C-alpha cells in the first residue's frame, strides 16, 4: 500500500532552490501527523549527492539521488522519466513538487506518466482521514478550490514563498538510484542559458514587491520604485496597464494574465486595482497602496492605504525606510 510523503527537490547549478526546503518542511509536518517517512528525489549531474545533507537538515529521512550528466541542466523528458521511475518503485502516498517553472513543467508530465491527479500551485495542504486535501487558488485567486484525489499517488505542487522552511534535522540517508538516461529518448536540448544579470529576485520568489501602474505616468516614473525596491531588497512589478503601454517588460506583470505573487509585502503605487490585478496579488501577506484617488478599488484590499501624490510619498518612504533598515 502506498505510504509516506515524497518531495521532488529542485536544484540549479549545485545549489538547492529555496522551494526545496519549503517542500521538505511541509512534507515533514504532513508526515509527522501520520507517523510517516519523508523521502526526496534529488536529480542532477555528477556530484549532486552533496546536497542530500541539506535536505536532511529540513526534515527528509531518505534521499533518492540520481546522478547523470544528462540530468544537468534540467530537461523535461530525462527528469520526468527518472522521477516517475523512483515514484513507481517506492510507492509514496503523496508526492510534492514546487510550483516553480521547473516544478510545474515536471509535475504535469510525471502525473500523466503515472495517470494520476495533480493539484497545481497549492497554498495549503493537509492530511484529512489519511488522504491529501489541497487548497489552491483558481481564477488567479478570485476563488479557491479544495482538491481531493481519486488516484495514487496524490500529487501537488506548492506555491513558492507560502510554506515556511524550518530546520528539523533527520537522517537524509542517501540511496543512489540508477539514473542512466537513454539518450535516444531525449528529443530536447538546452542550447543556451542566458542569465538575468540584474541580480533581481524573480517576482514569484520575492519577499518584497514594489509595483507601479498607470499612475506612474511613464517608464521614467518607475525610477523611484526601483529606488524603494533597492532599499527593501525587493523586486519591481507592474500592472497590465503599465506593461501594455510598453513602460515595463512583460515578465514584470502581476495579475491574472501575468504572475500571481505572494510576497510578505506588496506596495502598489499608482495602481487603481482592476480586478485582474487584484487577483494576482491579493494573497500577499501585507499590502500597502499609494494612490491619490481615495475611491480606487486597491484600497479595499490594502492593509495600509496612503491617499496622496505617489511622486511625493514614494521618495519620502524610501528615505524613511533607509533610516529604519540601515
Amino acid at each position, binding site marked *: 500500500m502506498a505510504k509516506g510523503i515524497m518531495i521532488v527537490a529542485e536544484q540549479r547549478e549545485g545549489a538547492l532552490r529555496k522551494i526545496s526546503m519549503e517542500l521538505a518542511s511541509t512534507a515533514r509536518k504532513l508526515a509527522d501527523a501520520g507517523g510517516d517517512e519523508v523521502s526526496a528525489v534529488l536529480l542532477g549531474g555528477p556530484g549532486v549527492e552533496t546536497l542530500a545533507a541539506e535536505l536532511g537538515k529540513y526534515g527528509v529521512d531518505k534521499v533518492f539521488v540520481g546522478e547523470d550528466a544528462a540530468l544537468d541542466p534540467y530537461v523535461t523528458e530525462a527528469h520526468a522519466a527518472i522521477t516517475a521511475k523512483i515514484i513507481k518503485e517506492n510507492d509514496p502516498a503523496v508526492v510534492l513538487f514546487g510550483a516553480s517553472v521547473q516544478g510545474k513543467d515536471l509535475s504535469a508530465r510525471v502525473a500523466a506518466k503515472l495517470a494520476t491527479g495533480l493539484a497545481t500551485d497549492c497554498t495549503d495542504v493537509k492530511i484529512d482521514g489519511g488522504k491529501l486535501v489541497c487548497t489552491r487558488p483558481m481564477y488567479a485567486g478570485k476563488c479557491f478550490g479544495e482538491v481531493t484525489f481519486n488516484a495514487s499517488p496524490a500529487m501537488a505542487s506548492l506555491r513558492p514563498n507560502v510554506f515556511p522552511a524550518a530546520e528539523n534535522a533527520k537522517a537524509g540517508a542517501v540511496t543512489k538510484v540508477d539514473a542512466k538516461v537513454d539518450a535516444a529518448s531525449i528529443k530536447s536540448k538546452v542550447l543556451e542559458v542566458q542569465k538575468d544579470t540584474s541580480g533581481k529576485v524573480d517576482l514569484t520568489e520575492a519577499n518584497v514587491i514594489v509595483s507601479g501602474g498607470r499612475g506612474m505616468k511613464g517608464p521614467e516614473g518607475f525610477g523611484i520604485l526601483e529606488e524603494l525596491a533597492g532599499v527593501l531588497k525587493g523586486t519591481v512589478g507592474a500592472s497590465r496597464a503599465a506593461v501594455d503601454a510598453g513602460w515595463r517588460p512583460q*515578465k514584470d506583470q502581476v495579475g491574472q494574465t501575468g504572475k500571481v505573487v505572494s510576497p510578505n509585502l506588496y506596495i502598489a503605487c499608482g495602481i487603481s486595482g482592476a480586478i485582474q490585478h487584484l487577483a494576482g496579488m491579493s494573497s500577499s501577506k*501585507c499590502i500597502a497602496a499609494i494612490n491619490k484617488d481615495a475611491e480606487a478599488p486597491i484600497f479595499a484590499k490594502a492593509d495600509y492605504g496612503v491617499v496622496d501624490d505617489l511622486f511625493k510619498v514614494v521618495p519620502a518612504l524610501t528615505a524613511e525606510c533607509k533610516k529604519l533598515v540601515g
Partner: protein
Amino acid sequence: MNIIACVKQVPDTEAQIKVKADGSGIDDGQIKWVMNPYDEYGVEEALRLKEKNGGDVTIVCVGPARAMETIRTALAMGADKGVHVSDPALDNADAFVTASALAAVIKGLPHDIIFCGQRAIDDDSGQVGAMLAELLGIPQLTLVTKLEYAGSSVKVIRPIEGAQLSIETALPCVVTAQKGLNEPRYASLPGIMKAKKKPVDVKNAAALGIATEAKAKVAKTIPPPARPPGKIVCGDEPEQKAAELARLLREEAKVI
C-alpha cells in the same frame, strides 16, 4: 505543415467570480465567455507558421456547447477546421481527463506541432500541455515566448526564474504559449463570415474511448479568505504619511 491549436473557453479577466452557496462551483450566469488569453497566443503562432510555411491549422477544444463560439473565433482568425469535444460527462474534467480527450483527437490527426496556452485563466492548472505531450509520447516546450521553425525542429526561448533558456526540440512537439510570444490578431469581418462555413467535427467521450472520471477533483469551491479591513494612513503632508507608513510596516506589520 499540420498545425494544431488547442483552445478553451474561459470567463473574461474582468469577470467577478461568485461562489455558489453550496460550494459546488461558481455561479456562471453573468459571465462573459472568451477564448483563454494564452490560447490566443497559441492560435496566432499557429496561423503565422501556416502563413510562412503552408499547411493547415486545426482547432481542438474540449468544452460545453457554448465553447463552439470560441472555436468559431479561432476559425475567424484564420484557422481551417475544428474539432469540438462536447459531452456533459466532461463538465468536471480535470487536466488529465482534458488532456486524454485532446490526445485521443490529435492521435487521429496528422500533427507536426501542437499549441496550447501555458495555462487556462479559470482553473489555473497549467498542466494540460505537458500531459498532452506525455500522452502523445512527444516532447513539450512550456512557457514559450519566442519560436523559430527549422524544418524538422523548433528552437524556442522560455523564461525561467532569473534566466532565459534557448531550447531546440525535434518535431512533433507540444508548445505552450506565454504572453510575449506574439500579438494576436483580431478576426476580420470577412473572416467571421468565412468561419461560419468552416467544418467543425463534434465528438463525445464515448466516441474517443476515454475515461471521464477526474483524478484530482475540486470537491469544494470557496471564496477567498476575507482580508481584515485596512487603515488609511493619516498625516497632513505626504512626508508625514510616508513616515507613518514606514513605522506601521516596521512595527505593526513587521514586514520591513
